C-alpha cells in the first residue's frame, strides 16, 4: 500500500513537471501554430542558472528569481528575436529552426557548466508529509498545486477574457486578428514568455528533489509534448491532467515492471495514442483546405 502511494505520489510530481511543460507547449502552439521544441530548455536555463548563482553564495530565493527571469527572457526572446522575423517560413523550416535553438541552448549550457549534475536547496523548506508510510515532500505538493492552479488560471484566461480569446485568434488567422486590432506579435511574445515562466517554475520546484544536466531539455520537451498532444494541443487544463497521467503511468511501470523501461514505454505507447488522436482528422498532410 505504501509502495503504491509512494509510486503515485512521485508519479504525480513528475507528472506535474510534464504538465507544466505541456502547458507551455499548448500556449505557444495556440498563439503561433509552432510546436515549441525548445520548451524544455527553459527548465534547463532556470535550473542551471539558479544552481550556479547559489554556488557563489547568493541566497537561494534571489538566485531563483534571477533564474526565473532568465527563463521568461529565454521564452520571450525566442519569439521576438528568432521566430518573429521568420513566421512566414514553411513549417518544416520552422521545425528545424526550433530544434536548432534547442540544440544550441544545450551546447551553450554544456560549454558553460560542463557535463556535471546540478541541484540546489529547496525554496519551500525541506518539510515532508507522511501518509501511511509514504513520504511526500513539500516541494512536490507545491508543484502539483501550482500546476493545477496555473492550469485553471490559464484556462480561465484563454476562454473567459477578451485578451485570452485574442491570443487564440492569433494562431487561427494572424492577419485577421491584427486587422481586428489585436497586437498579434505582442500576444505571441507574452505566450512564449509565459511558457518560459512555466518551465522555470517547474525547475525551481523539481530540481531540489532531483538534479539537472545540460541535456535535460529535449527529453523533457518530448514528455511535455505527449501531454500536450493528448490534450489535442488545445486545452490547457487537459494538458495538465495529461501530464499527471503520463507521470503516473511512468512511475507505475517503473515500480512494478521495470525501472529502465518506464520512460521508453510511456513515450512509445502514449506517443502512438497521441499521434493517432491528432492524426485522425488530418488530410492532405495537414495542409489547409482549398
Amino acid at each position, binding site marked *: 500500500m505504501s509502495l503504491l502511494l509512494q509510486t503515485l505520489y512521485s508519479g504525480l510530481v513528475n507528472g506535474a513537471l510534464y504538465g507544466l511543460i505541456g502547458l507551455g507547449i499548448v500556449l505557444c502552439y495556440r498563439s503561433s501554430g*509552432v*510546436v515549441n*521544441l525548445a520548451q524544455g530548455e527553459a527548465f534547463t536555463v532556470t535550473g542551471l542558472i539558479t544552481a550556479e548563482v547559489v554556488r557563489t553564495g547568493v541566497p537561494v530565493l534571489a538566485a531563483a528569481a534571477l533564474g526565473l527571469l532568465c527563463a521568461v527572457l529565454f521564452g520571450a526572446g525566442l519569439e521576438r528575436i*528568432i521566430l518573429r522575423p*521568420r513566421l512566414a517560413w*514553411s*513549417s*518544416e*523550416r520552422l*521545425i*528545424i*529552426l526550433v*530544434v*536548432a*535553438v534547442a*540544440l*544550441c*541552448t*544545450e*551546447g*551553450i549550457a*554544456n*560549454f558553460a557548466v*560542463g*557535463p556535471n549534475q546540478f541541484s540546489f536547496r529547496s525554496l519551500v523548506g525541506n518539510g515532508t508529509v507522511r501518509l501511511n508510510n509514504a513520504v511526500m515532500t513539500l516541494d512536490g505538493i507545491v508543484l502539483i498545486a501550482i500546476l493545477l492552479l496555473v492550469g485553471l488560471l490559464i484556462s480561465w484566461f484563454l476562454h473567459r477574457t477578451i485578451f485570452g480569446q485574442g491570443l487564440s485568434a492569433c494562431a487561427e488567422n494572424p492577419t485577421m486578428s491584427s486587422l481586428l486590432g489585436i497586437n498579434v506579435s505582442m500576444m505571441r511574445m507574452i505566450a512564449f514568455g509565459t511558457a518560459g515562466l512555466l518551465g522555470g517554475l517547474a525547475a525551481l520546484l523539481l530540481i531540489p528533489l532531483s538534479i539537472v544536466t545540460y*541535456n535535460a531539455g*529535449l*527529453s523533457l520537451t*518530448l514528455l511535455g*509534448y*505527449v501531454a500536450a*498532444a493528448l490534450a489535442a494541443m488545445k486545452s490547457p487544463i487537459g494538458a495538465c491532467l495529461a501530464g499527471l497521467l503520463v507521470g503516473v503511468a511512468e512511475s507505475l511501470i517503473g515500480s512494478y515492471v*521495470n525501472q*529502465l*523501461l518506464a*520512460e*521508453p*514505454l510511456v*513515450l*512509445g505507447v502514449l*506517443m*502512438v495514442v497521441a*499521434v*493517432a488522436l*491528432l*492524426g485522425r482528422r*488530418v*488530410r*492532405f*498532410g*495537414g*495542409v489547409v*483546405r*482549398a
Partner: protein
Amino acid sequence: MSTSTASAVSTRLRSLSWSSVAKLCALVILVLSPGFGIPSWNLNTAVLAGILGLAALGVNVLIRFGRMVNLGGASFLGLAAYGAVLATTRFGIPYVPAALVSLVTAAVVAWIAGGIFARLPNFYFAVAMLGTSAAIDGVLAAFPGVTQGDSGLTTTRTLPLGLFTVGSSLGWYVTIVVITVAVVPLTYRLVHGWRGRLFSLLREDPMAASVHGIEVTRARRVLFTASAILAALSGVLLARWQGVIVPQDAGLTESVQLLGFAIVGGSGSPIGPVIGASLLTWLSAAISGLGDVELFVYGLIFFLVVAYFQGGVVGAVEVLTSKVWRRYRSVDNREPDELKIGHGSDVETNAPMLVSSSRLREDPANAEIPGLAGRLEVLTVSKIFGGIHALDRVSIEARPALVTAIVGANGAGKSTLLNIITGVETPTQGEVHFEGRCLTPGEPVERAQAGIARTFQTARVALDLSVEENVRVGAEAIYNLALFGRRDRRPDNRLTERCRDALAEAGLGHIAQRKTSEIGGGRRKIIEVARAIALEPRLLIMDEPGAGLALEELARLEKIIASLRAKGTSVVIVDHNLDFVSNIADCGYVLELGRVVYAGDVNGLREYMEHTVHVTESPLETGRHLDG
C-alpha cells in the same frame, strides 16, 4: 526553328558539361581529400562521415521531397544495427544475409509505421519521430540480457562481403565511397523524370496533388520507407565499423545530428548531406580534445545555417560559383535565349487551332459517348458546419457537352459544394453521383481516377517546375503511378502528345520551358486549366476560372471551354462574373444561403440575378469563412 532548337540544345549541352565537369572534379577532390594531410581528416574520420552520410541522405530525402522533418532518423539506424549484430553473434548467421534481412525488416517496419506517421502534419510527424527515437534508445538499454545495455553489443570490425573481407581503413573507405556513389544517384533519380514531378507537386501543394490523383499519404509513406532503408544501411555498416553498437546510436542526439548533417551540408543538393556529414564529423574530431565545446560549436553552426543560410554549404558554393560564372559568360549567353523565345511564340500561334480541330475529329472518346459519360448528379446534399447550413438539400446536375454555371454571392455555399463534388469535404447528407456511380464519401484521388478534373480559385501549381512539367504531372499522376503500386501504365509517347496538345490549346507552347515561378498569376490559372485538359477528363470543374485573368487570357479560356464542350466534356463553372458566365454557360444554378434558388438556362439565370433582390449577407461570412 530547327536551327534555333539545335543551337539551344548545343548551348545547353555546353553549359551542362562544363558545370558537371567542375562538379565531378570537386567530387574527386573530396573523395581524395583524406589523403591530403588535413589535421583530423584521415581515413577513419572519413569512413565514419561516409557511413553517417548515408543516414543523413535518408533524412534529406524526406525533407526535400515530402517536407517531412525526420527528427528520429537514428531510429532505424539503431534498430537495423542491433538486428544485424544480434543475428550474427547470437544465431551465427553470416554478415551479408544478416544485413540484408535487417534492411528488409527495416523496410517492412517502416512501411507499416509509415501508415500511422505519414498522415501526420509536419510538426506532429517531427515530434513523433523524435519520440520514437528516444523510445528505441530506452528500450534497447532496458534489456541488458539481450542488448548488453548501455555498454552495447560488440562485434568484429570487419566487413565480410562473401568473396573478400574488408578490414583495413583504406578498404573500408573504398567500400563506403562505392556505396555512396551507388546510392546518391538513386536518391537523385527521385528528383528527375516523372517521379520528381509528382513529388514536386506533392511538396508544393498536397491538396492539388490529391485532386490530381496522387495519393498523398501513400507517397509520403514511400519516402518514409526509402529514408528508413538508407538509415538501416548506415546502421548495419556503422555497427561493423565501430565494432560496437550502443543504444545512444538510435537516440535523440544522434537523430538531431543526422538532421544537422543534411541541413548544414545543404538539403537542396543530392550530395549535400554527405558533405555536411564530412564537414561536421571532421569538425567534431578536430575539436574533440578541447573539452565541452563539441556540442556548443555543433549547435551554433546548425543554428546559424538554419536561421541565416538556408542553402547550407553546397548552396553557398553554388551561389558563389554561379556569380562568378555569370560574370564570366555574361556576354555570349543572352542572345540565343531571346531568339529562342521569339521563334517559339511564332510556332505557337499557328499550332493550337490545328491541333484541337484534329483532335476533335479523331478523338475516340468523342465517337463513343454513352448516355452517362460525364454526367454529374448532386442529390440533396447538405453540409452543416457547427450548426450553420452551408448547404441545404442542394441538387444539381451537369450533363456532357454542356457548360453548367453555379452562381451565388460569397458564402452562398459555392465552394463548399465544389469541395464536396471533388471529395475535399464530405457531405453531412446526400450523395454525389458521377456516371451513375455514387462517389460519396470518398477521397479526391478517387474522383481524379473516375475522370473528374478540377481547377482552383487561385492556381495551385508547383512553382519550381516548368510550365510543361506542371501540365505533365497531372496526367502522369493518373496513368503512371507504378511507384505507388498501380499498374495502369500507358505508353509514354501518348502522354507526351497529350501534354503538347494541352499546352498548345492553352496557348502556353512558347513558355512551356519557363519556370512557373516566373509566370504571372493569371497565366498560372491557365496552366492549371491545361493540366486539367491533359487529364482528358469527362467532367471538368472550375472554381472561379475567370477571376484575375487579363482580357486576352479570358478569351483564351472561353475558347478552351468551348472546345471542351464541343468534345462532349461536361464543364461546371463556379463564378460570380455574370458577363463571363452568360458568355460561355448553357445553363446554371443560383445558390443563396446554401439553397438552390434558380435552376434553368443561362438567359433566365442572368435575368434572375439582375431582377431579384438577393440576400448577400450570409451567416457564413460572419462566421467561418470557407471560400479561401
